[in-house]
């Protein structure tokens, strides 16, 4: 199950057989990161690598959450707004008081749960296609975040809140430094991997994404599975938001574009849009690749907004090659 489309269609051989178990996105990542390292050697030092992982951790977490919705055949575009709401809501609730941090985080996960469930219910019971439904909830959540903050959020979150994104442990054996964010990343992706590839639930997600009608007639609770996928995606957005809140100040633009970045990351990792195929390893490797690509664009001095363009091209080419695969393999 953890093998992905990587390497499919390559000529067969023993080395290739091994390569088939390696996600193509990992190779892409290694190549891109090597180029980054050549341009800026500090990235090749352990601290540089850890810093890269720390900064790409939110995207990797978002991608592994988005993956559940994609594997179930949908899209979650509301992630971006939920990240923004998490950061703004976090600053409103915590109110610069470190004592408020823990229950604030709890409340934020509660909000995430509600938004995810709402997405899932709209798609499952109102039958609104998820691209449209989650674009709609994106507007709603964005509006709610702006309303809550009175339109001009500013300032910073309490320090213990920001630790999830910012704190770096020093003097760690072997690797030297260890950001808390990387720890969060490891825990979250292990949970996602377990949920999608080990449990019965994960198999149901894939079956629902592949053919919801067949899954229903085989006894699968299709709506419940779909709602759960949207909830997981929303919880990943809250997790990512908590980390991003540690990176910088509170602003309205924190989350913008992240949902599409997460989808693009999954696509790079071999996840098939419209459901049925994908892996957490691929999603995370895809997120690292995309972030390495962004770093590269920065290093060569291209404007940030070309990221969007790159993502657009990635989306189209990935789906086109997926369509080609389905037509030509058998």
């Amino acid at each position, binding site marked *: 199950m953890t093998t992905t489309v990587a390497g499919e269609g390559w000529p067969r051989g023993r080395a290739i057989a091994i390569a088939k178990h390696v996600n193509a996105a990992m190779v892409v990542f290694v190549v891109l990161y090597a180029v980054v390292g050549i341009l800026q050697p500090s990235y090749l030092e352990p601290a540089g690598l850890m810093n890269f992982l720390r900064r790409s951790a939110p995207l990797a977490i978002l991608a592994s959450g988005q993956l559940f919705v994609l594997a179930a055949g*949908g899209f979650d575009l509301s992630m971006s707004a939920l990240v923004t709401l998490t950061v703004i809501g976090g600053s409103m609730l915590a109110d610069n008081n470190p004592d408020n941090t823990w229950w604030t985080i709890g409340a934020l996960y509660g909000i995430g749960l509600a938004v995810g469930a709402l997405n899932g219910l709209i798609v499952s019971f109102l039958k609104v296609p998820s691209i*449209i439904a989650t674009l709609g909830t994106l*507007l709603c959540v964005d509006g709610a975040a702006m309303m809550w903050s009175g339109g001009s959020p500013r300032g910073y979150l309490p320090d213990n809140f920001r630790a999830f994104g910012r704190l770096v442990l020093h003097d760690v054996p072997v690797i030297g430094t260890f950001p808390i964010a990387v720890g969060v990343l490891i825990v979250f992706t292990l949970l996602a991997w377990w949920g999608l590839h080990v449990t019965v639930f994960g198999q149901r997600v894939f079956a629902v994404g592949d053919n919801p009608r067949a899954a229903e007639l085989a006894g699968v609770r299709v709506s419940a599975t779909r709602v759960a996928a949207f909830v997981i995606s929303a919880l990943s957005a809250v997790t990512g938001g908590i980390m991003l809140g540690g990176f910088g100040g509170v602003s309205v633009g924190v989350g913008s574009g992240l949902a599409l970045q997460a989808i693009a990351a999954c696509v790079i990792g071999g996840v098939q849009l419209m459901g049925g195929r994908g892996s957490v390893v691929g999603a995370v490797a895809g997120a690292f690749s995309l972030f390495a690509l962004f770093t590269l664009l920065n290093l060569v001095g*291209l404007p940030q907004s070309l990221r969007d363009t790159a993502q657009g091209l*990635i989306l*189209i080419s990935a789906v*086109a090659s997926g369509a080609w695969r389905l037509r030509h393999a058998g």
Partner: protein
Amino acid sequence: MTAIVSGAPRPRRAPPAPLFLFVGSLFLYVGVAIWTGQTSQLHTEGWVGLLQRMVALGIVGVGQTFVILCGSIDLSVANLISVGAVAASFIMQGREAMMLPAVAVVLAISVVVGAINGAIIAGLRVNPLIATLGVGLVLQGLLSASFTDFAGSVPQAFQAFAYGAVGPVPYSVLGLFALALAAWWTLGATRFGAHLYAVGGNAEGARLAGVRTHLVMVGAHVICSVLAGVTGLYLASRLRSGAPWVGRDGVYDLESIAVVVIGGTLLAGGRGGVWGTLAGVLLFATLDAALNMLGVPAYPKLILRGAIVILAVAAYAARTREHVA
């Protein structure tokens, strides 16, 4: 070899959506105006203002009707509108002499974008939601990389597009209705229109009947993109300049889809028409006007906008027994 189970699905009788929406919108508008005591909104200027609210969404909506009827969808319209608005005002730089070249460039860009959308969908068989989302991202990225604020300006003469009028009726409103008439004629009385419905209703059947389905798909997308470009020109004229966020801020992608669906056009294609879309646009304009009269502030309005789009699509989609992802 699988034999067929049943032939073409039996259609539901379509509710007379356009008429119902039209009357409902009028009642809503009048009702809110009276309830809030803003009876001045019921004078000519109020009605003209209401019609003027329809123009931008109406032009994109008519374009979106074409692509949805042939079983596709276009999420790149909002970004293309921004591109059109910025390109127009950047090329004009306030000079009247550059009006024609600017319009020509915007229309040419739109034709190319539409052809690319259509080619990716028909030729590479990419799901239209993703294809147009991707093209929209590419456009937005290129645009935002080149412009970060209002770029250039449009000359006084060009502002006539948005502000000129024949008596009390603005050119733009007349233009919208002329456009709707032309679209109605194209859909109902030409071979292209017939083939558009055929591709949306049963693409494989149409292909086997000798219809050049790829060309029809590309044609529909070119029409949609050109109308998005025209919307961009209109917004540049109304705002007197173009900025890279005008399309996104207007939520034209989502709302154009919503008005088409509200108007009774099947999201899957094959049935519907342009008058329903216009009625849907009237409803949205009325809601917008009503929220203004009620004094709802900007952010709650954003929330309502999102909710209205979802509920509008749900009103048609919720009845289906099929699974939706």
